[in-house]
């Protein structure tokens, strides 16, 4: 397969027609620059997009976002929709870190105050919020409390631990999906989850204090409460070992019921949505999604407590406000216009983020005129973007945008490239302080291990998937 096998059907929109591969039932559509597309062909990610286009009942087309890279079965940055009643659900289309996602918190703390306080603030975060491999929560939840987390997500945290009920409007799906059932979740998953609520984890998870450097869309920025020079906080984590165990359990259960004999990739096993396995997986998936929203909410509340204590001010005095929280790895029922009629579909987004347009009923009143905030973090050396959903993106890609820069280097390559280098020192010279329990983790996440966030966002905006609102630069990064 080569780039010339694709048809260019718009800015950064490449279509691989289904007629080129007899197994494909729909086209594959990749949003990418020529360079990104070439890299995705080379690393095998495009083959994965084509494999998804061969799954039964896939609707419209198999999509990939500009941060596409090779995953397992389903590429990272992949999107696929199936009929919500008669279609299929596939755990590989969600990933193991169920509802890994990101939230953006606005503050009115001056950037100079954060710069002066980076060391004590970072140390306080590392002391209070469990970060790194295998870390456990500092809170002990009863079995009943944990079941309420799985059913009620972020709402449980707000009502029983800490938080502001108004924040729930600014979380995708209100921070909880219905039809979650702890009864279909294994004792192993429950054991892992009960000890991990409020913990950041490791890998590419982080807490980042950033300063807003550029505003591209003043009306949208005003609606989101974002202004130049403002300090914002980004939290990136997911459902921890709980979600990993749920995914592992259901991949096993589904593959035993439906052996992957005809599949091009065994990691693409699936269940009919209406089958017992499909229903149970969705109930468990929703529980893990709710856990992740509760996890990010609790981490945010712990961060707020740290800031209140350090600055001797209340959250109101510090101007702390949740801008938005969005999922990266999830399958959710949504209504989309397909072939001129509205259909209820189960949209799988794996390493991709929902980006709903202005006027969408699921958006909070404050954002309905401008569209959903879309938070796209880059590497710890580059910075991040805030965008907004567009009508074009809704029509082209089920209202979806990229979730990040996407890796360009494997972890092993990153370790090789960073050998003998002082990555925190290099970042410090750029005014970015990085703290972590793991020097290996910092090296694996070095800026050069990721694609350019500017390039991914440029392609995203020019393709019409989402529109740029603001750019942020990191000040203080706490890596898991």
């Amino acid at each position: 397969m080569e780039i010339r096998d694709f048809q260019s059907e718009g800015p950064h929109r490449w279509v691989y027609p289904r007629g080129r591969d007899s197994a494909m039932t729909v086209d594959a559509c990749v949003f990418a620059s020529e360079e990104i597309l070439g890299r995705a062909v080379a690393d095998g990610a495009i083959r994965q997009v084509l494999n998804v286009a061969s799954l039964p009942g896939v609707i419209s087309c198999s999509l990939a976002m500009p941060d596409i890279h090779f995953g397992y079965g389903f590429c990272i940055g992949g999107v696929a929709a199936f009929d919500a009643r008669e279609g299929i659900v596939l755990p590989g289309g969600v990933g193991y870190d169920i509802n890994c996602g990101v939230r953006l918190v606005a503050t009115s703390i001056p950037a100079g105050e954060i710069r002066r306080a980076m060391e004590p603030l970072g140390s306080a975060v590392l002391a209070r919020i469990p970060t790194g491999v295998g870390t456990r929560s500092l809170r002990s939840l009863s079995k009943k409390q944990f079941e309420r987390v799985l059913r009620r997500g972020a709402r449980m945290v707000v009502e029983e631990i800490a938080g502001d009920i108004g924040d729930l409007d600014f979380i995708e799906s209100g921070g909880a999906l219905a039809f979650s059932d702890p009864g279909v979740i294994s004792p192993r998953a429950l054991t892992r989850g009960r000890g991990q609520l409020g913990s950041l984890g490791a890998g590419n998870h982080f807490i980042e204090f950033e300063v807003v450097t550029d505003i591209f869309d003043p009306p949208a920025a005003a609606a989101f409460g974002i202004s130049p020079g403002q300090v914002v906080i980004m939290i990136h984590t997911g459902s921890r070992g709980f979600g990993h165990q749920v995914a592992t359990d259901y991949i096993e259960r589904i593959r035993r019921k439906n052996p992957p004999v005809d599949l091009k990739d065994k990691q693409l096993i699936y269940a009919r949505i209406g089958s017992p396995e499909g229903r149970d997986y969705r109930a468990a998936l929703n529980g893990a999604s709710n856990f992740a929203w509760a996890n990010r909410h609790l981490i945010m509340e712990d961060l707020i407590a740290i800031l209140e204590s350090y600055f001797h001010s209340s959250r109101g005095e510090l101007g702390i406000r949740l801008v938005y929280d969005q999922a990266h790895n999830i399958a959710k029922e949504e209504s989309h216009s397909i072939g001129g009629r509205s259909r209820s579909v189960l949209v799988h987004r794996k390493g991709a983020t929902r980006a709903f347009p202005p006027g969408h009923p699921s958006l909070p009143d404050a954002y309905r005129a401008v569209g959903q905030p879309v938070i796209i973090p880059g590497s710890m050396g580059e910075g991040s973007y805030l965008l907004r959903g567009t009508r074009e993106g809704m029509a082209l890609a089920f209202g979806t945008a990229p979730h990040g820069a996407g890796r360009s280097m494997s972890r092993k390559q990153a370790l090789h490239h960073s050998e003998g280098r002082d990555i925190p020192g290099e970042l410090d010279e750029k005014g970015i302080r990085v703290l972590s329990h793991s020097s290996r983790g910092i090296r694996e996440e070095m800026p050069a291990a990721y694609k350019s966030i500017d390039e991914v966002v440029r392609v995203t905006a020019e393709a019409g998937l989402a529109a740029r609102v603001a750019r942020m630069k990191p000040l203080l990064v706490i890596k898991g």
Partner: protein
Amino acid sequence: MKTGSYRFTAPTADIGLAVRAPDRRGLFVQAFRGTLHLALGYSPAPQIGKTGALPVRFSGDGYENLLVLLLSDLIYRLDTDSLLPADLRVTGLDSGQFSGMITQIPRVGCLARAIKAVTYHGLKIRKQPAGGYAARIIFDV
């Protein structure tokens, strides 16, 4: 090749393990050791401080399935058990059953890497033309 070996490989986002051994039992042992090395950042010395022995048994529908079950069980134990799984002895293996004994030692220090899961992506245990068996396993990390 007396006992087999493992080495790490590097797909873009994840980490792989290339394993080979003279027989399937040895392949399972090498995959277990390689996964431990990946998680701990070193190879534990099970002969030092052996504290416990834990029997494990899985039923499956093929060798690849049994290998995933074994390594998924190891990932769970690394995340939850108070003792550290340090080595594996295979006591029974056919295409439908696996049984073995895990050597446990006291935990010292933290894990070096979080392994989310072992995947089926491209997983195939192959008999090698020159003898022995090989497999490539991809982890989500």
